[in-house]
């Protein structure tokens, strides 16, 4: 490529990237402004009177009288519990589907799981709500992680990995007297660490960022996840307290942003794997 067109290309990339990053930078910048400056309609990225008051209040649970630390702890807890369950259940199931030939209805089960990937969430949303409601589980932690355990994406992803695992290693272990559980937990799982990390990041981000379900599955302020909580604020009368609101969204985004940047490579791998198939 000619040098001039290469420079033009880089310039274009820089401008586009600036547009993409601007809202996030603006969010962080506004979070350090007092409410008066945040509403002034200026375009300064460096606050005139920088303040960390929005954060101090937020982390002390005083910000707009909402328990923001509780919300973040809720989100982190259900994210970690849900992800652990998904990893455990999906890896066991896909191990059986990929390696245990004597599993009854093996093909039927596998096709059923894969077909379920086609099902839009709107089909199960309302009946799932009623189901949890019947057992008085709306507004409990159970409602915030159990629904995610039904997803078949992880089964599909791990199946791809387990099916291509060399048979010789498994045979050798069996001759040494290892049973199925030992083969699963001591041989297949340790070899699947990288794909499990991928699935873990994908699942955690999905649960932490999920929006519609936690919005309806929680009813009291202290049970909200951070996404549902912020949505409630955005609809309430606090909507123009931008400095405080932006401090909350910055705190809310931090955990998932760290996971995202650290795990970006694996995250991309998970997406592209599903695209190729």
């Amino acid at each position, binding site marked *: 490529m000619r040098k001039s067109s*290469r420079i033009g*290309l880089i310039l274009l*990339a820089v401008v*586009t*990237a600036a547009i*993409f*990053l601007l*809202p*996030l930078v*603006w969010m962080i910048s506004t979070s350090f402004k007092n409410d008066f400056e*945040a*509403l*002034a*309609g200026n375009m300064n990225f460096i606050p005139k009177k920088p303040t960390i008051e929005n954060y101090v209040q937020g982390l002390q649970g005083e910000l707009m009288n909402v328990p923001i630390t509780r919300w973040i702890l809720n989100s982190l807890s259900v994210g970690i519990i849900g992800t652990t369950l998904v990893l*455990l*259940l999906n890896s*066991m*199931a896909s191990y*059986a*589907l990929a390696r*245990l*030939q004597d599993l*009854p209805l093996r093909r039927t*089960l596998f096709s059923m799981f894969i077909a379920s990937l086609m*099902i*839009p969430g709107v*089909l*199960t*949303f309302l*009946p799932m709500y*009623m*189901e949890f409601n019947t057992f008085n589980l709306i507004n409990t932690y159970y409602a915030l992680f*159990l629904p995610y355990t*039904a997803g078949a994406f992880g*089964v599909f992803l791990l199946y791809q990995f387990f099916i291509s695992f060399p048979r010789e290693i498994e045979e050798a272990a069996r001759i040494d007297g290892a049973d*199925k*559980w030992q083969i699963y937990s001591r041989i297949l799982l340790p070899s699947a660490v990288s794909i499990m990390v991928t699935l873990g990041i994908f699942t955690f*981000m999905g649960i932490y*960022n*999920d929006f*519609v379900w936690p919005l309806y599955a929680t009813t009291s302020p202290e049970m909200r996840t951070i*996404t549902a909580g912020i949505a409630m604020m*955005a609809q309430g009368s606090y*909507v*123009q307290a*931008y400095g405080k*609101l*932006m401090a909350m*969204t910055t705190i*809310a985004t931090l955990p*998932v*942003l760290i996971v*995202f*940047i650290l795990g*970006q490579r694996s995250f*991309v791998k998970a*997406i*592209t794997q599903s*695209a*190729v198939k």
Partner: protein
Amino acid sequence: MKTTWQSRLTSSLFVLPYLLCFCTFLLFPILYGVYISLHNFELLSVDHEFVGFEHYIKIFTPGTYLNSLFFHGLWATAQFVIYSVPLLIVLGLALALLVHHLPGKLRGLFRTFFFLPYAVSASVMAVIWLMMFDSNAGFINSVLMKLNIQGIPWLTDHPWSWIALVMTTLWWTIGFNMVIFANALNEVPEDYYEAASIDGAGAWRKFASITLPSIRPVMLFVMITSTIASFNIYAQPFLLTRGGPGDTTKVLLINILDQAFVRKELGSASAMAILMALLIMIISIFQFRLTKSRKE
């Protein structure tokens, strides 16, 4: 290898926990949803009267409340799909091409920049853009006023509300499409381009006759996932425009959830949800067939 019933049992035990979750939180809700949709199912009452297909019939009977709720919502959703999907595909591919042609060292960095907004949640995205679009203090209108252009009522005026919703969606989700396209571009063998260069093909020619055909399967995937995602639009109009101005951005999912949780009529809401799900599945199958048959 001989298999005993004990062996089959232990094999089954590996699948059983997931199968239980699958049945409880996916299979059963689907069937239960059909049951609910055939009843007058009020959220707070205990008795549910069986009404057969009445809700479905009402949805398709012009003049009824359910009919206007469903089809007005569907029309708003369809508009969003029509405005957003082509841009999500074309601009997603354009971004991927841009990243692909950057020097190797910069690629990862810029891919991260474009993908970063995808990491924020729906409500964070909405709150950021509520502030960006604020008609007085918002960043965008501040820029416009500096340029002596009158501020735009982004979220409260037609057609700006649609433009705002599409812009927000592009910012938030296009990184996903970009990543998939960028990966597909990496897989196109370099020799194809070299051979074409020797034959004297220009950049456009190479794109049209090498790049596009090579990434066709990925294009299909992006098309289907983007259409489904746009069909499921909820958070953006729910939080940014609140369905307004008027009811113009009251998309189907807003109407379904309002019917279920505001008016507490779960029966008819479920009927609408089932129809919406069927529509999504039909469209994905149709798109799948369309691209498959073109290949042959």
